[in-house]
Structure formats: C-alpha cells, structure tokens
C-alpha cells in the first residue's frame, strides 16, 4: 500500500495553527506518510511543527462558512487546532489524518521507515540482555539459573525466551507449572534483594478453578525460594472477591492448604477500562477552562486517578516492606500477570534497589519488567485520553507506573539520576515513537516483526550523552538506601508535568529549574578549578623540591 493513496490533499496554504499556550500562526500545512508538518511562513519565527500521525488520538472537524477547523487531540494530551480555508480541502485533510493515524499494520508504522540522523554509538537492542542481568545476579547467589525452556515461545507466549528460575527446578517441571498458570506465566524471578537474599517473583493466577485443582510442581517451585523455616507472602493484586470470582472462569488463587508456608494478601488494584475511564475523566477535568475552585477538586476526586496511584504505590510499598523489613520472599500476581503485577514488582524495585533509580538501571527495569515481561504495549497504548472509539484493551497502566515513579521522585528529589523530563519522554514514546522499542505486545511478536533489525531502539538514542544531558537530575547524589515513600493523600499530587503540561504556565518553573542547574554547575566548575589549582600547586612544589635536591 502506498501512503499517497491515503493522502487526498498533501498540502494546504494559508492555514492557521492554534497551539497550546502560544499565539496563532499562519503557515503551510503538509501531510506526509507519517507526519503532519506545519511551517510558518514568517522567516524570523521559523517555527515548524512535526507531529507523528501515530501521536494523534482523535480528529474533530467543524465549519464556519467555508472556513474549516480541525481539532487534533494528541496522545501526549496536547490539543492543537488548524483553521483551513476551503471546505473540500479541510475535509480531505481531516480524513487523510484520520486514516494515517489509525493504520492497522504495525509494519507501516514510522519506526520501520525512520532513519536516524545520529551516529549509533551503542545498539540499544543489545543494551539490556537477560544474560547480562543474570551475570550480575550470579555474582551474589548461585541458587538461580537461566532457563531456555521458552526459547520458541511454546511454554509461555508472552514470556521472553530466557527467564530466571530456581536452580533446583528443571525445565520439565516448568512446563508443568506453565499449564497450571494463566497464559503459561509460571513464577519467575523478578528481583533479588542483595541485602538479605530475599526475592520477589511474579506470575499469573493459578488455574485452580472451582474444584481447587493443585499442582505439586508449582508448590515446589515457589517453595524453592524460601529459606528453611521461613514464610513468604503472596501479594494478589485483586480483591479477595474478584479472586474468588475468577475461580468460576478457571482461574483462582493459591489455597492455604497447599501453600502452608505462604500468607496471601489481597491488594485491590484496578485494571482495564476502569483505568482508561479514570484517565479520560482526569484529562477532561484538566482541560476544562470554566470551572471554579470547587468543581476542580471534585472533578479531580471523581476521576479517581490519585486513588489508583495510592493503591498501586501502597501495594508496591507492601511488597518492598515484606522483603526488606520482614525478611520474607514475595510472589506477586493478579490475574494475567501483565499489568498490575508489573506495576507492583517494578515499583517495589525502585523503592528497594538504588540501581533502578539511575538512568541505565531504570531503562533496564523497563526492559526487564515491562517489555520482556510481556506488558502488551501495543494494545494498552493504542489510544489515549481522547479516544472515543471504545476498545476494551486500552489502559494507562504504564502511565500510572510512571506517575507513581514521579510521586517517589517528588518525595526523594535527590535520589534519582533522572528527572521528570525523562519520565515524560518515556510516556510519549510508549504512545507514539520513531523507535521500535514499544512496538508489539511481547517478545514473541517483536521477534516476528524483526524489530531489532528493522527499527532503531529508543535506548540507542537516549543513551547518547547529548540526549542524556536533558534527562539528568542535577540534584542526584547516589543513595544506597531503601526509600520509603509516603502514600498519604497529602503526599500525593497531580502530575502537572503531564496532565497540566499544555495548560499551565511553565515559564517560571522552567526558570527555577535553570537556576538549580546554574547553582550546581557553578559549584562543579569551581570544584574543578580548585582541584586543578591544587594539582598545579602540588606539581610546582615537587618541582621545587626536585630543584632543591639538584
């Protein structure tokens, strides 16, 4: 298929662009296969807007006389408006944008066409391989092994080919356990807490059904992670009610009789359409220009977004607490083990593991706990807050995770190597990107799409020093400790950098950031100067002494 077929009118002159928080500009609109490009005619501004069609969440059009207006709502929550003279042109452009922003085939997406303008120093596809992660692990423990049982994705279609499992469990047992877990997602290692050797595992729900089926291999597998005489915790991210209902559909939860060494805790985290609706309501409230103070707070409340944040963070803190404070191992699962489970396991690692608070460590975490762990990005991020087509698979699961990270970052502003911009960048790329990293729903699909050969990895771009500079937190001082965030309502705030990004005045806040950077940079500069002088002095003094000796 040629993109040209979809582009009915490739160009419109004399269009007017109304962006968020900036004056209207007149210019030319161009449509290409993957971008909507707007360039103002005025030389001095020289401003150009390049918008990925994949970033467009919905298109609305309306007419006043022969002047058409297209309102474009983006997945990054920006809203832009284009006034286009000529009804036919306007209709053509609107329908072209609509068609281009809803392409069915992944292989037509921009990442397959994108050619980087930068030199690739490090191939991001090879930056975070499971083998490397395991190497780090094997430095501290030998109780685990890499299993290739899933190398052709036959045991679990949503797992990566290589997973980490207890050493004493062989691949045959794994296959049996996979049959007992929803979607074949048998328990695998998620995190090893070096401090006390406790671990966090994740899986999907066991298929106990109504008649209480059991699987000895499953029991053996998770018991293998317990120290003698120790108990562990199973954190089920569903309420007890929901978990009980799941039995009717063949799912269920671990029963005490068969898992006597494990204590089950239910923490209710919402999923799917409830989260999506929450996002839609929240963004609606943020974009509402009319309401007074009271309506704002009640709309914020009614969206329930912060309630979800609080629930997720609480569950993650609980998991971290079990591991670090109770000295117990933890198994986390919900029903599928691809959404709320990953929120909990990844956030718990940010709380526990200082490495996850560095840029590379966080990237590794995203690769390990989200991409390889099979969070279905393609399905979840297909539409964002403005979508009006009801598709039941969309959910801002990853955005909620990033929001929770931001909440912790806000409470520990000096403990993270990255800044808010880094998290916002990940949010944007999860929904629309020139890179292939977030394409597909799991490693199986990605390998079929041959993403590593045909597309560029996001990490190849981010990890270049030019880009990293934008994402570094100037306040960062490595903090080797566990950081316990507060989950009280007073401590949780709306993530303005995402939700009010296009409506709030940011000039003064940006200036403050700049000032922080100035202060730190000046300090570093002076430190370097002082060190240089001291070295110089020392050298001169040795020279002196040498002369003396002569």
């Amino acid at each position, binding site marked *: 298929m040629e993109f040209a077929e979809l582009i009915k009118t490739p160009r419109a002159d004399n269009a007017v662009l109304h962006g968020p928080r900036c004056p209207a500009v007149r210019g030319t609109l161009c449509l290409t296969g993957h971008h909507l490009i707007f360039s103002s005619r005025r030389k001095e501004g020289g401003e150009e807007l390049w918008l990925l069609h994949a970033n467009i969440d919905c298109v609305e059009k309306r007419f006043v006389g022969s002047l058409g207006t297209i309102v474009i709502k983006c997945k990054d929550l920006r809203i832009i408006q284009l006034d286009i003279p000529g009804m036919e042109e306007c209709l053509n452009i609107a329908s072209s944008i609509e068609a281009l922003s809803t392409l069915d085939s992944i292989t037509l997406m921009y990442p397959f066409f994108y050619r980087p303008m930068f030199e690739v120093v490090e191939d991001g596809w090879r930056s975070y391989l499971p083998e490397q992660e395991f190497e780090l692990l094997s430095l501290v423990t030998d109780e685990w092994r890499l299993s290739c049982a899933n190398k052709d994705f036959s045991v679990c279609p949503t797992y990566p080919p290589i997973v980490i499992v207890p050493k004493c469990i062989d691949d045959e047992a794994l296959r049996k356990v996979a049959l007992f877990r929803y979607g074949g997602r048998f328990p695998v290692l998620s995190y090893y807490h070096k401090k006390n050797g406790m671990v966090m595992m994740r899986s999907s729900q066991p298929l106990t059904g109504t008649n209480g089926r059991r699987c000895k291999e499953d029991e053996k597998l998770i018991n293998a992670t317990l120290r003698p005489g120790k108990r562990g915790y199973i954190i089920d991210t569903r309420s007890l009610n929901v978990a009980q209902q799941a039995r009717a559909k063949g799912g269920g939860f671990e029963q005490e009789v068969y898992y006597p060494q494990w204590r089950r805790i239910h923490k209710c985290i919402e999923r799917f359409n409830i989260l999506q609706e929450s996002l839609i309501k929240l963004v609606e409230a943020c974009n*509402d220009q009319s309401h007074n103070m009271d309506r*704002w*707070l009640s709309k914020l*409340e009614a969206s329930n977004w912060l309630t979800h944040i609080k629930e997720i963070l609480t569950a993650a803190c609980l998991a971290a607490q079990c591991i670090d404070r109770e000295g117990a191992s933890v198994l986390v699962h919900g029903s599928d083990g691809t959404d709320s489970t990953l929120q909990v396991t990844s956030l718990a690692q940010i709380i526990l593991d200082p490495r996850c608070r560095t840029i590379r460590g966080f990237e590794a975490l995203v690769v390990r706990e989200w991409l390889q762990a099979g969070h279905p990005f393609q399905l979840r991020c297909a539409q964002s807050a403005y979508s009006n087509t009801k598709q039941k698979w969309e959910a801002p699961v990853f955005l909620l995770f990033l929001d929770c990270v931001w909440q912790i970052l806000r409470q520990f502003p000096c403990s993270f190597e990255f800044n808010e911009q880094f998290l916002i960048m990940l949010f944007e790329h999860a929904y629309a990107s020139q890179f292939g990293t977030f394409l597909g729903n799991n490693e199986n699909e990605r390998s079929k799409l041959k993403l590593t050969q045909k597309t560029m990895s996001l990490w190849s771009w981010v990890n270049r020093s030019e880009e990293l500079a934008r994402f570094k937190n100037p*306040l960062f001082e490595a903090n080797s400790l566990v950081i316990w965030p507060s989950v009280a309502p007073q401590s949780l705030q709306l993530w303005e950098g995402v939700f009010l990004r296009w409506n709030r005045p940011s000039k003064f806040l940006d200036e403050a950031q700049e000032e922080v950077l100035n202060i730190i940079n000046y300090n570093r500069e002076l430190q370097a100067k002082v060190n240089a002088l*001291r070295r110089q002095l020392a050298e001169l003094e040795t020279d*002196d002494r040498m002369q003396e000796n002569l």
Partner: protein
Amino acid sequence: VENVRLLDRVSSRKAALGTLYLTATHVIFVENASDTRKETWVLHSQISSIEKQATTATGCPLLIRCKNFQVIQLIIPQERDCHDVYISLIRLARPVKYEELYCFSFNPKLDKEEREQGWKLVDLNEEYNRMGIPNDYWQISDVNRDYGVCDSYPTEVYVPKSATAHIIVGSSKFRSRRRFPALSYYCKDNNASICRSSQPLSGFSARCLEDEQMLQAIRKANPGSDFLYVVDTRPKLNAMANRAAGKGYENEDNYSNIKFQFIGIENIHVMRNSLQKMLEVCELKSPSMSDFLWGLENSGWLKHIKAIMDAGIFIAKAVAEEGVSVLVHCSDGWDRTAQVCSVASLLLDPYYRTMKGFMVLIEKDWISFGHKFNHRYGNLDGDPKEISPVIDQFIECVWQLMEQFPCAFEFNERFLIHVQHHIYSCQFGNFLCNSQKERRELKIQERTYSLWAHLWKNRADYLNPLHRSNHSQTQRTLYPQMAPCNFLYKFWSGMYNRFEKGLHPRQSVTDYLMAVKEETQQLEEELEVLGERLANLQKMQLNGNKIQSKQQDRSKQLGLSASTNSLANTPQEYGSDLKSFPSRSPSQGDEDSALILTQDNLKSSDPDLSANSDQESGVEDLSCRSPSGGGCLHSEDSGKDSDEAVCLAV
C-alpha cells in the same frame, strides 16, 4: 506526671512512654527511652483547645490541639492526674492579662541596646521614604497624633497633600470606627496608589462632603488618571446588608469619577469555619484519597485563598497596568483589607519579596494599621467568635505565590512557617495587642523583644537558594495566571500537616541547594587563596630559576618556605571536607545529615520549634490497611537504615 504515653498520630501502635511536665510557659514531654530522651515542648500560648476524652482501660486520653497545627495526644494513667493537667492547662492556655504572656518573661540574653536596635530594624517612615514619600502629592499627617481621630490607626498617617485636617476629620466621622482613607502603597513610577479605609456610613442615602473630597484628593494625587477604583472586598450581599445598619458602600453617583467594584471575600466567621473543616480533614486517620479531596473541597479553604489572591491581582493590575489608584475597604478595614493590600503590594513591588521587605510589609499593612492580633489569634482569653485565621491566609497566599514563582522570593517556606508560629507564640512583642495605641500603653518595646531582629539574625536559614537579585522574577510586578488557574492553588501540607514529617518529601531541595551554595562560597574563597599562592609560587620560582645558578641557597630557601607554606595551608583538610561533602545529601529518614542540619539550624534559631520536631519512620503503616496482612507486619523506625547510611557514606 509520670508514665504518660504520647501517641503517634499516623500509627496508633507507636507510642512513646515518658514524663509530662507543666511549667509556667510550656508543656514539656520527655521520653523515657534512655538513648534519645526526646523532648516535646509546647508553649501554652500555642494551645488552641484541650479535649478530655472518655477514659479507657489504658488510661485517660487528653488531646491538645495547637494553633500551629500540631496535635498532641496523651494518655495519662490516672484519671485524677489527667483532670488536674486538664484544669491547669485550661487556665494556662487562656491568660487574662498581657503580663502573663511569654514575651514578658522571655529573655534571649541580649542587652538593652541590642533590644532597642532590634526594634529599629523595621522603620515605617523609612519605608514611606523608600516609596518616594513625602512628595508633591502625599504628606505625613499628624492629625492622629494622640489617637484623637482614630484609635486603631497609627499616629503617623500618610494622606494626599490636598486633604486638610478638616477633610480628614470629616471623612473619619463618615467611616466605621473612624478609619478614614490613608495611604498603604504608592507606586512612584506612575503615581498610582493603594489607599485603605473602613466602610462608609452611607446607609441608604447619607452623604458626606468631606469624605467625597477625601476620595477626590486621592484621585487627584494621581494626575495621570481621571478616575479611582473603590474596591469593596466583601460579597455584595454582605455590603448591602450593612446598609440597614447605617453602614454600607460608596454610591458612584455621589463621588466624582470613581469606579466601584465588589470582590467577594467571605467574613472572618466563614474563614474560621473553613479552616476548622480543613483541619478536620488533616486529622483524619489514614484517609482515602476521596475522603481527603472531598474534605478539602467541602472546607472551601482553597476557594477563599483564591478569592483573596484574585482581589490582590485585580488591584496590582489596576496600579501597574492601568496606572489607576485604588481605595480598598471591607467592613472595618482591618482584616480583608489588610490581606488584599498586602497581597497587591507583594505582587507590585519586589522589595516586599525580600526578607526585610516582607517584615516591613507586615509591619505596615497589619501591625501599624491596627489588625487585631490579640482578638484574631486569641492571645488573651476572649470571645472565640473574634478568632479567625486572617493572617494565616495571607501567609498561605505568599506560599502559593512562591510555588508559582520559585525564584521571586528571597525567603523560603521555613521563614513563613516561623513567622506564622510566632504570631501565635507570644514569644516576641511584635504581634501583641490590637493596635499601636495599646502597644504603646503597654510599653511593649521596652519590655519585650522584636521577632524581626531574631529572624534577621538567623536569616541564613531562611534564604531561598533560587533567589537572585538580578533574576527576572525579582524585578517588577508578578502576574499570576488568572484563568483557568484553579489547579494552581494547592493544599499546603508543609503548614497544616507540618508536624507529620512522614507526609513531606524526605529530601528537601531547598536545604540541598543551600548546602551547595554554602560550599560554593567556600570554594570561591579557597580558589582565591590558591590563586594567590600559585601566583606567589610561580613568581618565586621564576625568580628562582633566573638566579638559580648563582644563588642555590636562595632557591633552596624558597623551596623550603613554599613547602612549609603548603603544610600550613589546607588542601588536606579540604580533601576531608570533600569527603564529608556527600553527607550533605539528604539521604534517608530523619537521621540523615541534611535533616540534622536543618534541625540544628532550627535549634540555633528557635529552641521551641526544634524541640517539637518528631522523628518519623519512613515506613508507612501499610499493614494496617491490608485485610489479611494486619498485625503480622509491623513497621519499624527507619533508624536501621540510617545507621547503614552512615556506614555506607564512610
């Protein structure tokens, strides 16, 4: 009283056993735990209410709520003891005479001269001079020299030059409590001014020629503008109701060239109830997000804050953009008027955003113009209906502005919190009484100390590291976004939950940056010293090289002197400074260095504040919220981690 338990508000399972002492000025709780002996001090004047709750098996609970938003929950084993404590505190918390207040016994060990110097730190005449007054349009008037015209005004009042004593006296008779229009702020760039007064006694039709002449004089003192805004900060309904009592508002027909405007800020009773409701939300035990947001919304608190800000923004715009003078009043002109005038001044003039300027602003718009501190903040036992968080709201407005303009203010959040604390503490004489007249009669300046001098002495603790005098945000007028801006107003947990440290960010960017700046300063000095030494050395070596062949001895001598010099200097010591440098990073919990640093700061400046600081666990009480996980997971203090922090830092 011994064996008293102090309950932790976040977790009911955590309680400290200790001894409770009552002194003439403080309630003191000392923990038994031998390693810490942590003390909690509460000034009697900070106590806003004491509640004795039903006796339980463990003892008799006593709940003490403080005006600085601290809530202390004690359990006293014996009912009789509890009753005695209760009765004593009720009496101690409600003094009837000014002489009973702490400031009359507080002695910071300063001599008489230092005390007098302290009171001279803020001088209002100097401030009006700074504004450019007296000038061709404005002058100082002595019409109120013996408080003969208005007993709640200061003796020195600035009025238009063309307003004669006759006009002023005539106008004062037509205003509630004789609070005639007087100058609050003058903008020398365009002659526009902010004046303040109380409501006119207009009833349904009354007029007063002198009052009309007074307003005309104010308008004419700004030759660039042909009209004057009159801003009534009350809701229209309230103002109209006042007409029935012979009061009311200006009729545009009777005054030449005025534009009249209502800005609906609610009265002190509404504000008192609103705060009460918000504090109830803050006190909820493990509230859900919905409980909190609903409660916050129902309290209406942020709506009221926004109303005050909007009024201030309106006036600032009138003065700065339109160049029009404004007369502001409410009913008596000492609550809402003070809030609005000071917010407008703060927006207009960067001087008021400096530490000194902020002190001047409070002295000008609040203290000198007779804001009734004693009544509003209940320093002496009085009518509870007079109590209202009027200045608290102003202080919050400043904080909201600091959030929106992080570089605009010279001072930081801690400064605001300490000012709020001392408005209630009665440790310093500044905020005593209801008017200048009362303060002079009590000879406050001779018998007590000034807070401003105390804060000024410790100003290093209160600096905003992002403030730079040549930054664009510290120049000229601030324009906060008007609409839609509801989301810009946020709950201030640093104030209303300030004693629940666990709720706050565990690492303070402000403290971190302050430490960095301090280090930068040291580096600058170091650099200078090193530079000098290097220059000397190079010079000497140059000389040495030249004459080396001839004078071996001399170069030897030089070398020696240089090396002794290096020994005497500090690179080694500096090196260790560097090593200890990372410890400035607020790493974790309470026992980390940054917090200790701030606590030390507090201690040096404010013994009472620091003593209250509570050590909190970083671990949230999560287990109590999980249905089946309860009981078995107990949270510990983060002390363990902090110990490790020390090890790891080393």
